[in-house]
Protein backbone atom coordinates (compact mmCIF):
# COMPACT_ATOMS: atom_id res chain seq x y z
CA UNK A 1 0.00 0.00 0.00
CA UNK A 2 1.62 3.26 -1.05
CA UNK A 3 2.07 5.96 1.49
CA UNK A 4 -0.31 8.65 0.39
CA UNK A 5 -4.01 8.93 0.15
CA UNK A 6 -5.01 5.91 2.21
CA UNK A 7 -7.97 7.70 3.73
CA UNK A 8 -9.84 6.55 6.74
CA UNK A 9 -7.05 5.26 8.96
CA UNK A 10 -6.01 8.41 10.73
CA UNK A 11 -8.72 9.69 12.98
CA UNK A 12 -9.57 13.32 12.90
CA UNK A 13 -8.86 15.30 16.00
CA UNK A 14 -9.49 18.94 16.64
CA UNK A 15 -6.60 20.52 18.44
CA UNK A 16 -8.43 23.67 19.51
CA UNK A 17 -5.59 25.53 17.90
CA UNK A 18 -6.96 28.11 15.49
CA UNK A 19 -5.63 27.76 11.96
CA UNK A 20 -7.90 30.39 10.45
CA UNK A 21 -8.57 33.61 12.35
CA UNK A 22 -10.93 36.30 11.15
CA UNK A 23 -11.41 39.39 13.31
CA UNK A 24 -13.71 42.36 12.68
CA UNK A 25 -13.56 41.77 8.92
CA UNK A 26 -15.25 44.41 6.79
CA UNK A 27 -15.61 44.65 3.03
CA UNK A 28 -17.92 46.91 1.03
CA UNK A 29 -18.60 47.33 -2.65
CA UNK A 30 -19.84 50.67 -3.86
CA UNK A 31 -20.73 51.78 -0.36
CA UNK A 32 -22.72 48.63 0.43
CA UNK A 33 -21.27 46.58 3.29
CA UNK A 34 -21.09 42.99 2.03
CA UNK A 35 -19.11 41.76 5.05
CA UNK A 36 -19.88 43.75 8.16
CA UNK A 37 -17.67 43.21 11.21
CA UNK A 38 -17.30 39.45 11.01
CA UNK A 39 -15.22 37.47 13.49
CA UNK A 40 -14.64 33.73 13.86
CA UNK A 41 -11.84 31.21 14.25
CA UNK A 42 -11.49 27.77 12.71
CA UNK A 43 -9.65 25.14 14.72
CA UNK A 44 -7.18 22.83 13.08
CA UNK A 45 -8.88 19.58 12.07
CA UNK A 46 -12.49 20.71 12.06
CA UNK A 47 -15.03 21.12 9.31
CA UNK A 48 -16.26 24.66 9.73
CA UNK A 49 -19.35 25.67 7.81
CA UNK A 50 -20.35 29.08 6.61
CA UNK A 51 -24.06 28.96 5.96
CA UNK A 52 -26.27 31.71 4.69
CA UNK A 53 -28.72 32.81 2.02
CA UNK A 54 -27.45 33.96 -1.39
CA UNK A 55 -25.76 37.34 -1.19
CA UNK A 56 -25.08 37.04 2.54
CA UNK A 57 -21.34 37.66 2.08
CA UNK A 58 -20.15 34.05 2.39
CA UNK A 59 -17.99 34.00 -0.73
CA UNK A 60 -16.52 37.45 -0.06
CA UNK A 61 -15.54 36.26 3.43
CA UNK A 62 -13.67 33.19 2.19
CA UNK A 63 -12.11 35.17 -0.66
CA UNK A 64 -10.55 37.41 2.00
CA UNK A 65 -9.28 34.24 3.72
CA UNK A 66 -7.84 33.02 0.39
CA UNK A 67 -6.16 36.37 -0.21
CA UNK A 68 -8.11 36.94 -3.42
CA UNK A 69 -9.72 40.06 -1.98
CA UNK A 70 -8.24 42.79 0.17
CA UNK A 71 -10.36 43.52 3.26
CA UNK A 72 -11.35 47.13 3.93
CA UNK A 73 -10.43 46.57 7.57
CA UNK A 74 -10.04 43.80 10.09
CA UNK A 75 -7.61 40.97 10.56
CA UNK A 76 -7.31 37.70 8.63
CA UNK A 77 -4.69 35.07 9.45
CA UNK A 78 -4.17 31.61 7.97
CA UNK A 79 -1.63 29.58 9.96
CA UNK A 80 -0.47 32.92 11.34
CA UNK A 81 0.08 34.42 7.87
CA UNK A 82 -1.57 37.41 6.25
CA UNK A 83 -3.29 36.14 3.05
CA UNK A 84 -2.67 39.43 1.21
CA UNK A 85 0.84 40.37 2.35
CA UNK A 86 2.12 36.77 2.47
CA UNK A 87 0.03 35.55 -0.45
CA UNK A 88 2.59 33.12 -1.86
CA UNK A 89 3.15 31.53 1.56
CA UNK A 90 -0.59 31.27 2.24
CA UNK A 91 -1.24 29.50 -1.07
CA UNK A 92 1.06 26.74 0.16
CA UNK A 93 -0.95 26.04 3.33
CA UNK A 94 -4.39 26.77 1.90
CA UNK A 95 -5.98 24.96 -1.04
CA UNK A 96 -9.06 26.41 -2.66
CA UNK A 97 -11.98 25.24 -4.71
CA UNK A 98 -13.49 28.41 -6.08
CA UNK A 99 -17.09 29.06 -6.92
CA UNK A 100 -17.66 29.25 -10.68
CA UNK A 101 -14.13 28.75 -11.87
CA UNK A 102 -13.20 26.48 -14.76
CA UNK A 103 -10.14 25.04 -16.42
CA UNK A 104 -9.03 25.16 -20.04
CA UNK A 105 -11.62 23.08 -21.93
CA UNK A 106 -9.07 20.97 -23.81
CA UNK A 107 -6.84 20.22 -20.82
CA UNK A 108 -7.13 16.59 -19.74
CA UNK A 109 -7.64 15.56 -16.12
CA UNK A 110 -4.15 14.09 -15.99
CA UNK A 111 -2.59 17.23 -17.46
CA UNK A 112 -4.47 19.41 -15.00
CA UNK A 113 -3.25 17.31 -12.07
CA UNK A 114 0.34 17.35 -13.35
CA UNK A 115 0.21 21.07 -14.04
CA UNK A 116 -1.14 22.02 -10.63
CA UNK A 117 1.27 19.63 -8.88
CA UNK A 118 4.12 21.47 -10.61
CA UNK A 119 2.95 24.79 -9.16
CA UNK A 120 3.65 23.71 -5.56
CA UNK A 121 6.99 23.15 -3.81
CA UNK A 122 5.88 19.96 -2.03
CA UNK A 123 2.98 18.51 -3.98
CA UNK A 124 1.11 15.33 -3.16
CA UNK A 125 1.45 12.44 -5.59
CA UNK A 126 -1.53 12.99 -7.88
CA UNK A 127 -2.03 9.30 -8.71
CA UNK A 128 -3.40 8.08 -5.34
CA UNK A 129 -5.27 11.37 -5.05
CA UNK A 130 -6.98 10.80 -8.41
CA UNK A 131 -7.71 7.22 -7.44
CA UNK A 132 -9.34 8.15 -4.16
CA UNK A 133 -11.43 10.82 -5.85
CA UNK A 134 -12.60 8.33 -8.48
CA UNK A 135 -10.94 10.14 -11.37
CA UNK A 136 -8.80 7.25 -12.62
CA UNK A 137 -11.11 6.47 -15.53
CA UNK A 138 -11.22 10.13 -16.56
CA UNK A 139 -7.47 10.82 -16.67
CA UNK A 140 -7.43 11.16 -20.44
CA UNK A 141 -10.76 13.01 -20.66
CA UNK A 142 -10.72 16.69 -21.38
CA UNK A 143 -12.12 19.08 -18.80
CA UNK A 144 -14.80 20.26 -21.21
CA UNK A 145 -16.49 16.84 -21.41
CA UNK A 146 -16.53 16.05 -17.66
CA UNK A 147 -19.83 15.89 -15.77
CA UNK A 148 -20.53 18.37 -12.99
CA UNK A 149 -19.62 15.85 -10.31
CA UNK A 150 -16.37 14.90 -12.06
CA UNK A 151 -15.41 18.56 -12.40
CA UNK A 152 -16.02 19.14 -8.70
CA UNK A 153 -13.99 16.07 -7.76
CA UNK A 154 -11.16 17.33 -9.95
CA UNK A 155 -11.35 20.73 -8.23
CA UNK A 156 -11.17 19.00 -4.84
CA UNK A 157 -8.09 17.14 -6.08
CA UNK A 158 -6.52 20.41 -7.26
CA UNK A 159 -7.32 22.04 -3.92
CA UNK A 160 -5.49 19.20 -2.15
CA UNK A 161 -2.57 18.74 -4.51
CA UNK A 162 -0.29 21.22 -2.76
CA UNK A 163 -0.59 19.28 0.53
CA UNK A 164 -2.46 22.11 2.25
CA UNK A 165 -3.39 22.27 5.93
CA UNK A 166 -6.68 23.99 5.13
CA UNK A 167 -9.02 23.67 2.17
CA UNK A 168 -11.76 26.13 1.33
CA UNK A 169 -14.68 24.56 -0.52
CA UNK A 170 -17.10 27.17 -1.87
CA UNK A 171 -20.54 25.92 -2.95
CA UNK A 172 -19.02 22.55 -3.64
CA UNK A 173 -22.19 20.64 -4.46
CA UNK A 174 -24.26 23.35 -6.13
CA UNK A 175 -25.56 22.00 -9.41
CA UNK A 176 -24.83 18.35 -8.57
CA UNK A 177 -27.48 15.65 -8.57
CA UNK A 178 -28.32 14.12 -5.16
CA UNK A 179 -26.19 11.06 -5.82
CA UNK A 180 -23.09 13.04 -6.79
CA UNK A 181 -23.71 15.34 -3.83
CA UNK A 182 -23.64 12.43 -1.39
CA UNK A 183 -20.47 11.02 -2.99
CA UNK A 184 -18.82 14.42 -2.65
CA UNK A 185 -19.77 14.60 1.03
CA UNK A 186 -17.95 11.33 1.63
CA UNK A 187 -14.88 12.78 -0.03
CA UNK A 188 -15.01 15.82 2.26
CA UNK A 189 -15.25 13.57 5.32
CA UNK A 190 -12.25 11.61 4.06
CA UNK A 191 -10.27 14.81 3.57
CA UNK A 192 -10.88 15.79 7.16
CA UNK A 193 -9.99 12.28 8.30
CA UNK A 194 -6.51 13.01 6.93
CA UNK A 195 -6.24 15.96 9.30
CA UNK A 196 -6.94 18.68 6.74
CA UNK A 197 -9.08 21.48 8.09
CA UNK A 198 -12.10 22.24 5.92
CA UNK A 199 -13.81 25.61 5.54
CA UNK A 200 -17.08 24.84 3.79
CA UNK A 201 -19.33 27.46 2.24
CA UNK A 202 -22.83 26.26 1.52
CA UNK A 203 -26.47 27.15 1.38
CA UNK A 204 -27.61 23.54 1.75
CA UNK A 205 -28.83 22.80 5.28
CA UNK A 206 -28.55 19.08 4.86
CA UNK A 207 -24.94 19.42 3.77
CA UNK A 208 -24.02 21.65 6.69
CA UNK A 209 -25.83 19.42 9.17
CA UNK A 210 -24.18 16.28 7.87
CA UNK A 211 -20.61 17.57 7.53
CA UNK A 212 -19.89 20.46 9.85
CA UNK A 213 -18.53 20.42 13.38
CA UNK A 214 -19.46 24.06 13.78
CA UNK A 215 -21.47 26.42 11.63
CA UNK A 216 -21.42 30.19 11.36
CA UNK A 217 -24.78 31.39 10.07
CA UNK A 218 -24.26 34.58 8.10
CA UNK A 219 -26.96 36.98 7.07
CA UNK A 220 -26.41 40.41 5.49
CA UNK A 221 -22.69 40.30 6.20
CA UNK A 222 -23.03 39.54 9.90
CA UNK A 223 -22.83 36.33 11.94
CA UNK A 224 -26.26 35.66 13.40
CA UNK A 225 -25.25 32.43 15.17
CA UNK A 226 -22.17 30.27 15.60
CA UNK A 227 -22.62 26.83 17.10
CA UNK A 228 -22.60 23.10 16.44
CA UNK A 229 -25.43 21.94 14.16
CA UNK A 230 -27.17 20.39 17.19
CA UNK A 231 -26.62 23.57 19.18
CA UNK A 232 -28.22 25.65 16.44
CA UNK A 233 -31.20 23.33 16.25
CA UNK A 234 -31.77 23.27 19.99
CA UNK A 235 -31.85 27.06 20.02
CA UNK A 236 -34.85 26.97 17.77
CA UNK A 237 -38.09 27.54 19.56
CA UNK A 238 -39.89 24.18 19.36
CA UNK A 239 -36.85 22.09 18.40
CA UNK A 240 -38.88 18.91 18.97
CA UNK A 241 -42.21 18.39 17.24
CA UNK A 242 -44.83 15.97 18.60
CA UNK A 243 -47.89 15.13 16.54
CA UNK A 244 -50.70 12.64 17.14
CA UNK A 245 -54.42 12.02 16.69
CA UNK A 246 -55.99 11.48 20.14
CA UNK A 247 -58.70 8.79 20.58
CA UNK A 248 -60.76 11.31 22.60
CA UNK A 249 -60.70 15.11 22.72
CA UNK A 250 -58.09 16.70 24.96
CA UNK A 251 -58.68 19.71 27.13
CA UNK A 252 -57.13 22.87 25.67
CA UNK A 253 -56.16 24.07 29.14
CA UNK A 254 -54.25 20.85 29.79
CA UNK A 255 -52.40 21.24 26.49
CA UNK A 256 -51.58 24.90 27.04
CA UNK A 257 -50.15 24.03 30.44
CA UNK A 258 -47.51 21.67 29.01
CA UNK A 259 -43.93 22.59 29.96
CA UNK A 260 -41.59 24.25 27.44
CA UNK A 261 -44.36 24.46 24.85
CA UNK A 262 -43.44 26.63 21.89
CA UNK A 263 -46.34 26.13 19.53
CA UNK A 264 -49.64 24.37 19.33
CA UNK A 265 -51.76 23.54 16.31
CA UNK A 266 -54.96 21.53 15.94
CA UNK A 267 -56.29 20.54 12.58
CA UNK A 268 -58.78 17.83 11.56
CA UNK A 269 -58.46 16.24 14.99
CA UNK A 270 -54.68 16.04 14.78
CA UNK A 271 -52.57 17.89 17.33
CA UNK A 272 -49.09 19.18 16.55
CA UNK A 273 -46.98 20.53 19.39
CA UNK A 274 -43.57 22.23 19.27
CA UNK A 275 -41.42 21.99 22.36
CA UNK A 276 -38.56 20.06 23.89
CA UNK A 277 -37.95 16.56 25.28
CA UNK A 278 -39.62 17.74 28.45
CA UNK A 279 -42.78 18.48 26.48
CA UNK A 280 -42.75 14.96 25.04
CA UNK A 281 -42.58 13.34 28.47
CA UNK A 282 -45.37 15.58 29.76
CA UNK A 283 -47.63 14.83 26.78
CA UNK A 284 -47.19 11.10 27.27
CA UNK A 285 -48.12 11.25 30.95
CA UNK A 286 -51.06 13.55 30.18
CA UNK A 287 -52.38 10.98 27.69
CA UNK A 288 -51.84 8.14 30.17
CA UNK A 289 -53.68 10.02 32.93
CA UNK A 290 -56.71 10.51 30.73
CA UNK A 291 -56.44 7.00 29.22
CA UNK A 292 -56.35 8.45 25.77
CA UNK A 293 -54.58 6.59 23.00
CA UNK A 294 -52.40 8.60 20.63
CA UNK A 295 -52.83 7.34 17.07
CA UNK A 296 -50.02 7.85 14.60
CA UNK A 297 -47.77 9.38 17.24
CA UNK A 298 -44.70 11.05 15.69
CA UNK A 299 -41.86 12.74 17.51
CA UNK A 300 -39.37 14.49 15.24
CA UNK A 301 -36.44 16.79 15.86
CA UNK A 302 -36.49 20.12 14.13
CA UNK A 303 -33.91 20.27 11.34
CA UNK A 304 -31.27 22.83 10.62
CA UNK A 305 -33.72 24.14 8.05
CA UNK A 306 -36.05 25.24 10.83
CA UNK A 307 -33.17 26.70 12.81
CA UNK A 308 -31.90 28.54 9.75
CA UNK A 309 -35.26 30.07 8.95
CA UNK A 310 -35.51 31.12 12.58
CA UNK A 311 -32.06 32.72 12.56
CA UNK A 312 -32.45 34.54 9.27
CA UNK A 313 -36.12 35.22 9.92
CA UNK A 314 -35.79 38.91 9.14
CA UNK A 315 -35.09 37.86 5.58
CA UNK A 316 -38.36 36.08 4.91
Amino acid sequence: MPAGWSFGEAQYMTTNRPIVEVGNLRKSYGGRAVVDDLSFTVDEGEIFGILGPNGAGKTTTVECVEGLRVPDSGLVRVAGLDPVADHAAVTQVLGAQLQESELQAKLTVREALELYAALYPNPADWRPLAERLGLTDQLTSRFGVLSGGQKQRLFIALALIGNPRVVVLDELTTGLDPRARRDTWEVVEDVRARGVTVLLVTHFMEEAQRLCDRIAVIDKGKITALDTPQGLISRTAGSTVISFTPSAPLDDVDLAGLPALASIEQKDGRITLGGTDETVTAVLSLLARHRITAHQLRVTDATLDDAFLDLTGANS
Partner: protein
Amino acid sequence: MSAIAPTVRSTSPRAAVLRAEARLFRREPGTLFWILGFPPLLLVILGSIPSFRKADAGLGGLRIIDLYVPILVLVALIVTGLQTMPPIITGYRERGILRRMSATPVKPSALLTAQMGLNGSAAIVSALVCLAFGRIAFDVQLPKQAAGYALALLLAAAAAFALGALVSALARTAKIATAIGSAVFFPSMFCAGVWLPVQSMPHVLRTIVELTPFGAAARALGQAATGDWPSWSHLGVLAVWAVLLSAAAAKWFRWE
Protein backbone atom coordinates in the same frame (compact mmCIF):
# COMPACT_ATOMS: atom_id res chain seq x y z
CA MET B 1 0.03 16.52 5.59
CA SER B 2 3.07 14.55 6.64
CA ALA B 3 1.47 11.24 5.70
CA ILE B 4 1.24 12.32 2.08
CA ALA B 5 4.47 11.48 0.34
CA PRO B 6 5.87 14.55 -1.37
CA THR B 7 7.12 13.91 -4.86
CA VAL B 8 10.24 15.49 -6.24
CA ARG B 9 9.41 18.43 -8.43
CA SER B 10 10.72 17.91 -11.91
CA THR B 11 9.82 21.15 -13.66
CA SER B 12 9.68 24.78 -12.62
CA PRO B 13 6.15 26.16 -12.22
CA ARG B 14 6.41 28.62 -15.10
CA ALA B 15 7.87 25.97 -17.40
CA ALA B 16 4.95 23.68 -16.48
CA VAL B 17 2.46 26.43 -17.34
CA LEU B 18 4.20 27.06 -20.66
CA ARG B 19 4.23 23.35 -21.48
CA ALA B 20 0.53 22.97 -20.73
CA GLU B 21 -0.36 26.05 -22.78
CA ALA B 22 1.82 24.80 -25.66
CA ARG B 23 -0.13 21.52 -25.65
CA LEU B 24 -3.43 23.41 -25.70
CA PHE B 25 -2.14 25.63 -28.49
CA ARG B 26 -1.40 22.58 -30.61
CA ARG B 27 -4.96 21.32 -30.02
CA GLU B 28 -6.46 24.22 -31.99
CA PRO B 29 -5.97 23.25 -35.64
CA GLY B 30 -8.11 26.16 -36.86
CA THR B 31 -5.95 28.68 -35.06
CA LEU B 32 -2.76 27.02 -36.25
CA PHE B 33 -4.00 27.21 -39.85
CA TRP B 34 -4.73 30.93 -39.60
CA ILE B 35 -1.31 31.68 -38.13
CA LEU B 36 0.94 29.28 -40.00
CA GLY B 37 -1.04 28.49 -43.14
CA PHE B 38 -2.97 31.59 -44.12
CA PRO B 39 -0.12 34.10 -44.72
CA PRO B 40 2.00 31.70 -46.85
CA LEU B 41 -1.14 30.62 -48.75
CA LEU B 42 -1.99 34.24 -49.50
CA LEU B 43 1.58 34.75 -50.70
CA VAL B 44 1.27 31.79 -53.07
CA ILE B 45 -2.04 33.09 -54.44
CA LEU B 46 -0.65 36.59 -55.01
CA GLY B 47 2.53 35.19 -56.52
CA SER B 48 0.45 33.20 -58.99
CA ILE B 49 -0.81 36.40 -60.60
CA PRO B 50 1.56 36.85 -63.58
CA SER B 51 1.56 40.67 -63.53
CA PHE B 52 2.67 40.64 -59.87
CA ARG B 53 5.87 38.93 -60.97
CA LYS B 54 6.88 41.60 -63.50
CA ALA B 55 9.39 44.31 -62.59
CA ASP B 56 7.71 47.72 -62.36
CA ALA B 57 9.68 50.87 -63.14
CA GLY B 58 7.24 52.85 -60.94
CA LEU B 59 8.36 50.72 -57.97
CA GLY B 60 12.07 51.26 -58.62
CA GLY B 61 12.38 48.05 -60.58
CA LEU B 62 10.75 45.92 -57.88
CA ARG B 63 7.91 43.48 -58.54
CA ILE B 64 4.63 43.64 -56.63
CA ILE B 65 5.37 40.22 -55.13
CA ASP B 66 8.58 41.70 -53.67
CA LEU B 67 6.44 44.24 -51.81
CA TYR B 68 4.05 41.58 -50.56
CA VAL B 69 6.51 39.42 -48.61
CA PRO B 70 6.96 41.97 -45.77
CA ILE B 71 3.20 42.61 -45.82
CA LEU B 72 2.44 38.92 -45.28
CA VAL B 73 5.03 38.78 -42.51
CA LEU B 74 2.91 41.49 -40.87
CA VAL B 75 -0.31 39.59 -41.58
CA ALA B 76 1.02 36.73 -39.43
CA LEU B 77 1.55 39.19 -36.57
CA ILE B 78 -1.89 40.75 -37.03
CA VAL B 79 -3.62 37.35 -37.07
CA THR B 80 -1.92 36.19 -33.85
CA GLY B 81 -2.09 39.51 -32.02
CA LEU B 82 -5.67 40.42 -32.88
CA GLN B 83 -7.48 37.21 -33.81
CA THR B 84 -5.90 34.43 -31.79
CA MET B 85 -4.66 35.85 -28.53
CA PRO B 86 -7.42 38.21 -27.28
CA PRO B 87 -10.26 35.63 -27.14
CA ILE B 88 -7.96 33.16 -25.35
CA ILE B 89 -6.91 35.61 -22.65
CA THR B 90 -10.38 37.12 -22.22
CA GLY B 91 -11.81 33.60 -22.08
CA TYR B 92 -9.33 32.66 -19.36
CA ARG B 93 -10.51 35.61 -17.32
CA GLU B 94 -14.20 35.09 -18.12
CA ARG B 95 -14.13 31.43 -17.07
CA GLY B 96 -12.17 32.04 -13.86
CA ILE B 97 -9.02 30.28 -15.06
CA LEU B 98 -6.85 33.28 -14.13
CA ARG B 99 -8.56 33.45 -10.74
CA ARG B 100 -8.01 29.77 -10.10
CA MET B 101 -4.32 30.26 -10.72
CA SER B 102 -4.27 33.24 -8.30
CA ALA B 103 -5.07 30.73 -5.55
CA THR B 104 -1.80 28.84 -6.23
CA PRO B 105 1.80 29.92 -5.52
CA VAL B 106 2.11 30.95 -9.19
CA LYS B 107 0.84 34.31 -10.39
CA PRO B 108 -1.75 34.23 -13.20
CA SER B 109 0.57 36.44 -15.25
CA ALA B 110 2.39 33.17 -16.02
CA LEU B 111 -0.57 32.28 -18.26
CA LEU B 112 -0.37 35.61 -20.09
CA THR B 113 3.38 35.43 -20.68
CA ALA B 114 3.03 31.82 -21.87
CA GLN B 115 0.31 32.85 -24.33
CA MET B 116 2.30 35.84 -25.61
CA GLY B 117 5.39 33.68 -25.99
CA LEU B 118 3.52 30.97 -27.89
CA ASN B 119 1.65 33.36 -30.17
CA GLY B 120 4.80 35.38 -30.76
CA SER B 121 6.80 32.25 -31.64
CA ALA B 122 4.07 31.04 -33.98
CA ALA B 123 4.02 34.44 -35.73
CA ILE B 124 7.79 34.36 -36.17
CA VAL B 125 7.66 30.83 -37.60
CA SER B 126 4.96 32.03 -39.99
CA ALA B 127 7.12 35.04 -40.95
CA LEU B 128 10.08 32.76 -41.67
CA VAL B 129 7.86 30.48 -43.76
CA CYS B 130 6.73 33.52 -45.80
CA LEU B 131 10.35 34.62 -46.32
CA ALA B 132 11.34 31.10 -47.36
CA PHE B 133 8.36 30.68 -49.72
CA GLY B 134 9.09 34.06 -51.28
CA ARG B 135 12.72 33.14 -51.79
CA ILE B 136 12.14 29.62 -53.11
CA ALA B 137 8.91 29.98 -55.11
CA PHE B 138 9.09 33.55 -56.39
CA ASP B 139 12.77 34.43 -56.14
CA VAL B 140 12.15 37.26 -53.68
CA GLN B 141 15.46 38.32 -52.14
CA LEU B 142 15.87 37.80 -48.41
CA PRO B 143 16.02 41.07 -46.45
CA LYS B 144 19.29 42.78 -47.31
CA GLN B 145 19.40 44.86 -44.12
CA ALA B 146 18.80 41.91 -41.73
CA ALA B 147 19.41 43.78 -38.45
CA GLY B 148 17.08 46.61 -39.46
CA TYR B 149 14.49 44.06 -40.57
CA ALA B 150 14.72 42.21 -37.26
CA LEU B 151 14.40 45.44 -35.28
CA ALA B 152 11.36 46.57 -37.28
CA LEU B 153 9.80 43.11 -36.88
CA LEU B 154 10.41 43.15 -33.11
CA LEU B 155 8.80 46.59 -32.73
CA ALA B 156 5.90 45.55 -34.96
CA ALA B 157 5.38 42.44 -32.82
CA ALA B 158 5.46 44.57 -29.65
CA ALA B 159 2.81 46.91 -31.12
CA ALA B 160 0.64 44.02 -32.40
CA PHE B 161 0.66 42.17 -29.07
CA ALA B 162 0.11 45.38 -27.09
CA LEU B 163 -2.93 46.07 -29.30
CA GLY B 164 -4.13 42.50 -28.69
CA ALA B 165 -3.59 42.89 -24.95
CA LEU B 166 -5.64 46.09 -25.03
CA VAL B 167 -8.48 44.23 -26.79
CA SER B 168 -8.28 41.52 -24.08
CA ALA B 169 -8.37 44.21 -21.40
CA LEU B 170 -11.40 46.00 -22.83
CA ALA B 171 -13.52 42.97 -23.76
CA ARG B 172 -15.49 41.38 -20.95
CA THR B 173 -16.17 38.11 -22.76
CA ALA B 174 -14.34 35.98 -25.32
CA LYS B 175 -17.14 36.69 -27.83
CA ILE B 176 -16.70 40.44 -27.46
CA ALA B 177 -12.92 40.02 -27.77
CA THR B 178 -13.43 38.16 -31.06
CA ALA B 179 -15.75 40.89 -32.29
CA ILE B 180 -13.42 43.76 -31.36
CA GLY B 181 -10.45 41.78 -32.70
CA SER B 182 -12.17 41.37 -36.07
CA ALA B 183 -13.21 45.03 -36.18
CA VAL B 184 -9.57 46.06 -35.69
CA PHE B 185 -8.28 43.23 -37.90
CA PHE B 186 -9.45 44.58 -41.25
CA PRO B 187 -8.21 48.18 -40.83
CA SER B 188 -4.90 46.71 -39.63
CA MET B 189 -4.67 44.50 -42.72
CA PHE B 190 -5.45 47.55 -44.88
CA CYS B 191 -2.76 49.65 -43.19
CA ALA B 192 -0.24 46.86 -43.59
CA GLY B 193 -0.95 47.09 -47.33
CA VAL B 194 -2.73 43.81 -47.98
CA TRP B 195 -5.10 45.37 -50.55
CA LEU B 196 -2.72 48.03 -51.77
CA PRO B 197 0.91 48.24 -50.70
CA VAL B 198 1.58 51.41 -48.70
CA GLN B 199 4.17 52.58 -51.26
CA SER B 200 1.45 52.55 -53.96
CA MET B 201 -1.13 54.48 -51.94
CA PRO B 202 -2.03 58.09 -52.90
CA HIS B 203 0.08 60.65 -51.04
CA VAL B 204 -2.43 61.86 -48.40
CA LEU B 205 -3.63 58.33 -47.60
CA ARG B 206 -0.05 57.13 -47.39
CA THR B 207 0.89 59.89 -44.93
CA ILE B 208 -2.00 58.88 -42.67
CA VAL B 209 -1.38 55.14 -42.97
CA GLU B 210 2.29 55.63 -42.12
CA LEU B 211 1.23 57.01 -38.74
CA THR B 212 -0.60 53.76 -37.87
CA PRO B 213 1.39 50.92 -36.31
CA PHE B 214 1.05 48.49 -39.21
CA GLY B 215 1.49 51.17 -41.88
CA ALA B 216 4.76 52.26 -40.26
CA ALA B 217 5.78 48.63 -39.82
CA ALA B 218 5.10 47.84 -43.50
CA ARG B 219 7.25 50.77 -44.60
CA ALA B 220 10.08 49.93 -42.19
CA LEU B 221 10.12 46.28 -43.27
CA GLY B 222 9.97 47.29 -46.93
CA GLN B 223 12.96 49.59 -46.55
CA ALA B 224 15.00 46.95 -44.70
CA ALA B 225 14.07 44.35 -47.33
CA THR B 226 15.62 46.44 -50.09
CA GLY B 227 18.79 47.09 -48.09
CA ASP B 228 18.20 50.46 -46.42
CA TRP B 229 18.21 50.99 -42.68
CA PRO B 230 14.52 51.55 -41.83
CA SER B 231 13.67 55.21 -41.38
CA TRP B 232 13.75 56.31 -37.73
CA SER B 233 10.43 58.05 -38.15
CA HIS B 234 8.74 54.70 -38.94
CA LEU B 235 10.56 52.93 -36.10
CA GLY B 236 9.66 55.84 -33.79
CA VAL B 237 5.95 55.61 -34.72
CA LEU B 238 6.04 51.87 -33.94
CA ALA B 239 7.80 52.39 -30.61
CA VAL B 240 5.34 55.09 -29.52
CA TRP B 241 2.37 52.87 -30.41
CA ALA B 242 3.90 49.90 -28.57
CA VAL B 243 4.43 51.97 -25.42
CA LEU B 244 1.01 53.68 -25.51
CA LEU B 245 -0.93 50.48 -26.23
CA SER B 246 0.96 48.52 -23.54
CA ALA B 247 0.33 51.25 -20.98
CA ALA B 248 -3.37 51.34 -21.85
CA ALA B 249 -3.63 47.54 -21.68
CA ALA B 250 -1.86 47.46 -18.30
CA LYS B 251 -4.12 50.23 -16.98
CA TRP B 252 -7.39 48.59 -17.97
CA PHE B 253 -6.58 44.93 -17.63
CA ARG B 254 -8.52 43.13 -14.90
CA TRP B 255 -7.67 39.71 -13.54
CA GLU B 256 -11.33 38.85 -12.93
